[in-house]
């Protein structure tokens, strides 16, 4: 089983067994796609950004040491890619297309579905109103398998600071959500 951990697979990629990157891709593609999508990128851009993460993993595989969590390493890369994309997009005034808050989600039921849909719409709008850092920390906190220590690793801060940041971002989201709900 040890041979199949993310860390072991990435170390194999590092030693030239590039085929193993396919396994890592299959394992993490959905989560990475969700990360970019929930940060406000449209589906097509989110897919491109997922590709970029793996291109960068391939490019910088030599620098992978196997220390720390693989997921934290991957999300740190994803975070930088998202930042670079938005820097470039604002420089060239590229619009990111349809953001999640504008995407019409499929109705799941009738009245229940409509209410849920409305909440989702407001939640997406509230997320879009938060700062980039707040959005990131909230999207990361949604993944159960990510510990605060790893979130700290991704954000480049201590575990305690990560907890404070998630707490404050949640409060800000709640405030914004209520504001939008009243409007």
């Amino acid at each position: 089983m040890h041979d199949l951990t993310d860390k072991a697979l990435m170390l194999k990629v590092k030693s030239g067994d590039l085929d193993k990157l396919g396994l890592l891709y299959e394992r993490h593609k959905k989560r990475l796609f969700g990360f970019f999508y929930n940060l406000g990128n449209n589906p097509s851009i989110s897919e491109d950004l997922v590709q970029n993460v793996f291109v960068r993993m391939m490019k910088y595989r030599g620098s992978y040491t196997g220390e720390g969590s693989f997921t934290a390493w991957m999300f740190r890369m994803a975070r930088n890619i998202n930042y670079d994309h938005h820097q470039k997009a604002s420089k060239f005034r590229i619009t990111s297309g349809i953001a999640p808050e504008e995407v019409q989600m499929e109705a799941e039921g009738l009245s229940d579905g409509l209410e849920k849909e409305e909440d989702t719409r407001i939640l997406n709008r509230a997320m879009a109103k938060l700062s980039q850092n707040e959005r990131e920390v909230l999207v990361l906190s949604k993944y159960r398998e990510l510990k605060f220590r790893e979130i700290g690793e991704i954000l480049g801060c201590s575990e305690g600071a990560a907890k404070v940041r998630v707490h404050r971002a949640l409060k800000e989201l709640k405030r914004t959500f209520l504001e939008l709900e009243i409007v």
Partner: protein
Amino acid sequence: MDKEQFEIQAMEYLSGAMTDERKLDFEKFIGEHPNFKIELQELQDTLEMVKTMDAPEPSAKMDTVFFSSLSEEIGRQKAKQIDIGFLRYLWPVQKSQWILGLVVLCLGLAIGYLLNDQKGPEPIEVVTQDDETESMRQKLVLTLLEQPSANQRLQGVSEANKFEEADEIVIRALLQTLNNDSNVNVRLAAIESLTNYVDRPEVRQGLVQSIPNQESPILQITLANLMVALQEKASVEPFKELLKEKKLDTTVKKKLQNSIESII
């Protein structure tokens, strides 16, 4: 407890990262401070809401692009390894030996030029793929052949041509494409690709069996030409069946009759 301590402990509590003892202490503190209790409840609700954030499924195109670029990268890597290996092999050779080698090479080239009998050099194909690349390519071919876009399916057939020796799965996928693909160009490309393996009985059989499935005149003629070239007697019967079709193009009809005669 100050504000920051509460912020930290609240997150620990909500994520279930607290020990039982600390959890009891925290719950006691919350019970004594209604303001913090309300804040904790609000935090919990918001956290639950964040967890419900959804995302659509990524498209199949994302997989195609990824596996295609990974396959290319693996190919490049193998080629690079061969280059490095070759240079390492040459490394211990002395300078004088290099010069001597160069002189011999020039001499060989001059003699070769003089003796040139106008025959072109035999093409040498450097085979760099190994099992891994072949397996990646197989995945890529199968994924591409299932794509809704005809261009991508054509790309899939062209990837299939890169196999040194395609395995049974790829052959089956190509035959399936030949029989069922909606696009004539893709079906034509599949025939072309399958001609690389006509020495295999299952391919010849598959090609013969596909004759009744073809409605396009260009495909019927291409298959007729191929069967004549292969002198495949088993194809006579399906061609005769095809000739009974009323809608058959007259040019195709003539071609099939000629083909049957040539095969018999």
